[in-house]
């Protein structure tokens, strides 16, 4: 029983991180109709940034995390300005460009960081006894709380701020939102940056738990796409529920069925959702 609870906790911790990463994809799809295949690479880069900032340059780990996320945000903005902006109006082009970019970045990561998994130092050590039932690593607990903090921040940003409202308006009706005065090119740019930063946030949170490697990036993108499809396009709540569901199913499946199939569970869910509920758990049926 305690073992089960531990696997479940693992699933929830990974689940909230999944959710952050997936919201990054979902925002960009919802607002710009662009599928960012280079999502996983941004995540990996963030992991390496935080590793090198703290391990090689001696920046305190707690500062290295936001700094890495900020770098990824800038990279995201740069990507939108140079590569994505010229493709507006033709979804096929942006699809090809981000796909090519994902290959280029993955190989760049191999060149720059090498093929070895790297792991930034833990922020905390030891373990905590959870309700007297089992011991759970403090680093994972901290990652969980940081993730919850980030999720709350995103919900606040989207629901309450002018930027968030303009994001929602643009994703509902781009032309109308410019008629009320929203500069939608600027919103596009910032939300691409935000989407990238969320990939980065997931990357720096995960890196101390699971070391990052350049070749791991496709699985990360795929994972985010599965969550977005599962939760339903453009639904924040969907991303959170979808992320948790995938995290829990993967962890319980790996524990009780086989670790080898860990990544297969995601695909099975993806196929089931596409067959039975193609608009996702919280998405809306297209009219």
């Amino acid at each position, binding site marked *: 029983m305690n073992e089960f609870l531990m696997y479940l906790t693992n699933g929830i911790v990974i689940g909230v991180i999944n959710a952050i990463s997936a919201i990054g994809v979902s925002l960009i799809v919802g607002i710009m109709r662009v599928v960012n295949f280079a999502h996983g690479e941004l995540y990996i880069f963030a992991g390496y940034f935080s590793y090198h900032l703290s391990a090689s340059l001696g920046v305190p780990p707690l500062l290295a995390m936001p700094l890495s996320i900020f770098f990824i945000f800038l990279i995201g903005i740069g990507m939108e300005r140079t590569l994505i902006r010229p493709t507006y109006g033709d979804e096929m082009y942006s699809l090809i460009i981000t796909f090519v970019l994902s290959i280029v970045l993955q190989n760049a990561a191999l060149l720059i960081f090498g093929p070895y998994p790297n792991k930034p130092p833990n922020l905390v050590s030891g373990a905590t006894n959870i309700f007297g039932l089992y011991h759970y690593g403090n680093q994972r607990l901290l990652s969980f709380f940081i993730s919850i903090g980030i999720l709350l921040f995103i919900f606040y940003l989207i629901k309450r701020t002018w930027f968030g409202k303009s994001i929602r308006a643009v994703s509902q009706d781009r032309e109308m939102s410019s008629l009320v*005065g929203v500069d939608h090119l600027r919103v596009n740019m910032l939300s691409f940056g935000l989407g990238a930063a969320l990939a980065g946030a997931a990357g720096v949170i995960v890196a101390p738990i699971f070391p990052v490697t350049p070749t791991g990036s496709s699985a990360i993108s795929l994972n985010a796409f599965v969550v977005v499809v599962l939760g339903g396009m453009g639904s924040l709540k969907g991303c959170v529920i979808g992320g948790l569901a995938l995290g829990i199913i993967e962890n319980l499946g790996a524990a009780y069925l086989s670790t080898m199939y860990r990544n297969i569970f995601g695909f099975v869910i993806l196929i089931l959702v596409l067959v039975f509920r193609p608009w996702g758990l919280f998405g809306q049926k297209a009219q």
Partner: protein
Amino acid sequence: MLEVKEINVFRGDAQILWGLTMKVERGEIVTVLGANGSGKTTLVESILGVHHPKKGRITFLDTEITFKPSFHITRIGISCVPEGRRIFKDMEVYENLEMGAYPEKARISLKETVERVYSLFPILRERKKQIAGTLSGGEQQMLAIGRALMSKPTLLLIDELSLGLSPKITKEIYGAIKKLHQEGMTLLLIEQNAMLALRHSDRGYVLETGRITLQGTSQELLGNEHIRKAYLGM
């Protein structure tokens, strides 16, 4: 206040507007009448910067706005109620109104402007927490007008105000338009429903296949034989 001079507008390869000239003076209500496909919506969208003319110019308060992007045009004081209302359906009524006040200088007085909109359309106050997509057609039109007022425009464009609304609601909304006009608002109405629009406006233009074919005071137009036949069905 608004001057459209000799504009030629294309959509793709097709020319929609042919040397169109018109103007709206401060404090007026002007109606543009036209059947489906006459180019009414293209005219509205050219003024709003959605399409840019190939030839000609558009000025507002003596500033050229011909090639300005849409978001800029709202910021300088032209606001619109587009055809089909286009409210943000997944957002709350209040959030829709907030979006109307998106331009920097409108945000400062958001609270007062909301109150003004509520006093014009009290139903919106009752519905403020409701998701906008669940409103009735008439309420959605009120919301669209309310949203357009939130930016504190000097010129309000309304495309197809009465489309799909019951006569009762249409009358109610025209009542609100009259009130706005008395408070000093300048309005440009783009309409198929000639009778109501002309009755409530000072001047009118008739748009046919992308050209202005007739213009005059509303009284003149209401008495015109061609208009009576083609638009009023008399």
